[in-house]
């Protein structure tokens, strides 16, 4: 075990640190109105373009597709530096964390050339069309169907909980291409142009008032056969690649946001007064803040450990399920601790632009999205511990 950075890694870190010091924009003021949210979106899109132009997106992606060709461990260094510099997030997160790695793993050379670089540059934003009204945890039970018509597929059906669909240019869509075989064997993964005729996106308003995910309806949408990702009727294997990447990679990005939230809370705790002294001196609050730090730190370390392992084995393992449980449940506990630390003011929309109630409510989705905590525990039990399948 050696956690010292190699000269190469050190150079990477120093270069990135210097670039961030010179280029991180001032924080975007809280966006509450629809107009402000639109502005924030444009701000993030422009930011990612800038990051891409400087060569800092797709750290571990091959160079030929616009990536940096670096090791996975540099991806971890990247996250830590990003957090340290308080740099804005990269908006095309699904493309970079899930869909891009899947295209790299199973795509044709033409697909790699066509799509990958535009993911990194944020020219094309991606969403992931997996869940349906009747296919949530049981994704393989999906009903959206695609039938062959000449050189095209014709897609009909509905997806739901589709994050970023309202701004997406492309969708990695799972469809049923053979209804007469066991459910896992009749699925195909398609790359679908979201601007195609027949695609209808309807935002869903969430409990925190935001509308970042959507219902997507497909009404006779024409998709060229060349847009099959992987093989026809072998879409489940493609989907598993995506889901493993989802569990393994989302963690790296979430750490950046979590660390920033944590530091922000500590700054408040030092400043706010309760019982005549700073909240940070309250012995009960101190215990809770320390517990949160411990869990956040362990998430960072486990994530780095998983990346280190992946670097040797090249494919994310089911251990990613641990990371998904760790970050989602940590974030729920953290947001509760934040509410307790901040006191009554935390519930107000006028405090920090409503950030704390927004985040507090948003975390309820953390243990549902990207595979529920229950499904993740099933995966750990079956695939890591070898217990019998329960369903």
């Amino acid at each position, binding site marked *: 075990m050696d956690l010292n950075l190699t000269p190469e890694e050190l150079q990477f870190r120093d270069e990135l640190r210097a670039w961030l010091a010179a280029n991180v924009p001032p924080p975007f003021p809280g966006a509450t109105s629809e107009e402000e949210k639109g502005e924030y979106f444009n701000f993030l899109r422009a930011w990612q373009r800038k990051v891409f132009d400087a060569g800092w997106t797709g750290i571990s992606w091959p160079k030929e597709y616009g990536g940096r060709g670096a090791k996975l461990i540099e991806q971890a260094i990247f996250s830590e530096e990003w957090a340290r510099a308080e740099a804005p997030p990269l908006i095309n997160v699904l493309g970079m964390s899930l869909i891009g790695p899947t295209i790299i793993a199973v795509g044709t050379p033409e697909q790699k050339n066509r799509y990958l670089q535009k993911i990194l540059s944020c020219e094309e934003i991606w969403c992931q069309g997996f869940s349906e009204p009747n296919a949530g945890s049981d994704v393989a039970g999906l009903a959206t169907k695609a039938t062959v018509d000449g050189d095209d597929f014709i897609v009909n059906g509905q997806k739901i909980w589709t994050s970023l669909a309202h701004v997406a240019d492309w969708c990695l869509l799972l469809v049923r291409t053979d209804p007469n075989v066991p459910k896992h064997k009749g699925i195909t993964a398609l790359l679908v142009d979201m601007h195609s005729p027949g695609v209808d996106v309807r935002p869903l308003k969430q409990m925190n008032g935001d509308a970042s995910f959507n219902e997507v309806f497909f009404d006779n949408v024409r998709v060229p056969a060349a847009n099959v990702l992987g093989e026809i009727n072998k879409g489940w294997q493609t989907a598993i690649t995506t889901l493993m990447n989802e569990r393994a990679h989302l963690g790296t990005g979430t750490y950046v946001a979590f660390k920033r939230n944590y530091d922000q809370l500590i700054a408040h*705790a030092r400043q706010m007064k309760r019982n005549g002294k700073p909240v940070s001196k309250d012995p009960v609050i101190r215990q809770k803040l*320390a517990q949160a730090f*411990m869990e956040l730190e*362990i998430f960072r370390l486990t994530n780095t450990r998983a990346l280190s392992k992946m670097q040797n084995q090249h494919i994310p393992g089911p251990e990613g399920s641990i990371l998904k449980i760790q970050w989602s449940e940590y974030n729920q506990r953290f947001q509760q601790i934040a509410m307790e630390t901040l006191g009554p003011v935390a519930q107000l929309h006028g405090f920090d632009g409503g950030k704390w109630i927004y985040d507090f409510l948003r975390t309820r989705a953390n243990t549902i999205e990207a595979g529920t905590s229950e499904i*993740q525990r099933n995966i750990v039990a079956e695939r890591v*511990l*070898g217990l019998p399948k329960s369903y």
Partner: protein
Amino acid sequence: MNFDLTKAQKLLQQSARDFFSRECKPERVRELMASETAFDAELWQAMADQGFTGLTIPEEYGGLGLSLVDLIAVTEEMGRACLPGPFISTLWAASLIERAGNEGQRKQYLEPIAAGEMKATVALLEETGEWNADAVMLAATKDGKEYRLRGTKHYVSDAAVADVIIVVARENTDLVLLPVERSAAGVKITETPGIDATRKLYAVEFDNVAVAESSALAFTTKTKEALEAATDVATVALCAEMLGGMVWTLETTVEYAKTRLQFGKPIGIYQAVQHQCADMFNFSESARSATYFAAWAVAENDPAAKLAVSVAKGYASDAAREVGNRGVQLHGGIGFTWEHNIQLFYKRAKSSEILFGDANYHREKIAEKVVDESEG
């Protein structure tokens, strides 16, 4: 960067696993539990022959000169076997002697410790049970060329088998570290039987015990730093030992869930059981991440070392207990019996939770570094 044990470390770990599964079976643990001191001289000598007693002791004193990361690969296996006896106590004392002793003292103590000929422990806690060295009150009074020790130390692990006890005492405002032989005149050792009979605790009374001034380990203001640094080493080694106990409990429970039938099916098919097993895995792997990092940080003198140690021990303290709770629960009635070996690991987890400070203690230490100051 490589955040995993190296090939050599994995080999060392495997040989330790083979050794302890052969030499320290649960039946032997039970015999030692029931014995007076839980010490097995033959086993200790065999451990010394393997190099375990001198693993991190510098080569010039007969040790292997390996790092703390190598050591935790071995202490994890000690935990998996619930090894009784004074390994952690001796490691704590040796680390202290290495940091605070002069050349002669290092030679005097580290050589026989590495060879397996000497066991040692540290007497730190007093009646209040505080791990913070500032709480030490036991008086060392200067009397010519010697100190006189008066008072009682509590919760001293393995005192009855330690050939030397390093006493943390106070001379006016200064801390002093005084090696006292177990057999010295005025030393009275009384067992205070506790939850974990594999690592026995003692009250050690010092009735005007004379210690030559020249044998004191350190005279400088660095005494507290040396004590804290040595405690960090022992704490991380203990975290890995706790991890080994968690892994044993998880593996044993999963095996039971695969074979125990109810309603005609192995209970491991039910999600209520599966999810508790998944939580046990999460607890143990999280503790592993924190322990590995702490071992590396301490070995490298990284500025983050102290924080990393508190994260590791704070987390492991709660996790080891939580893993034990689930392990006993999933075993059902048999898990609550004296007959089942899970009791050995459950009790060890509890005594280890307390040793070197529990989660509350370490969370406060974390708060001092993270909540009070800005991070460095």
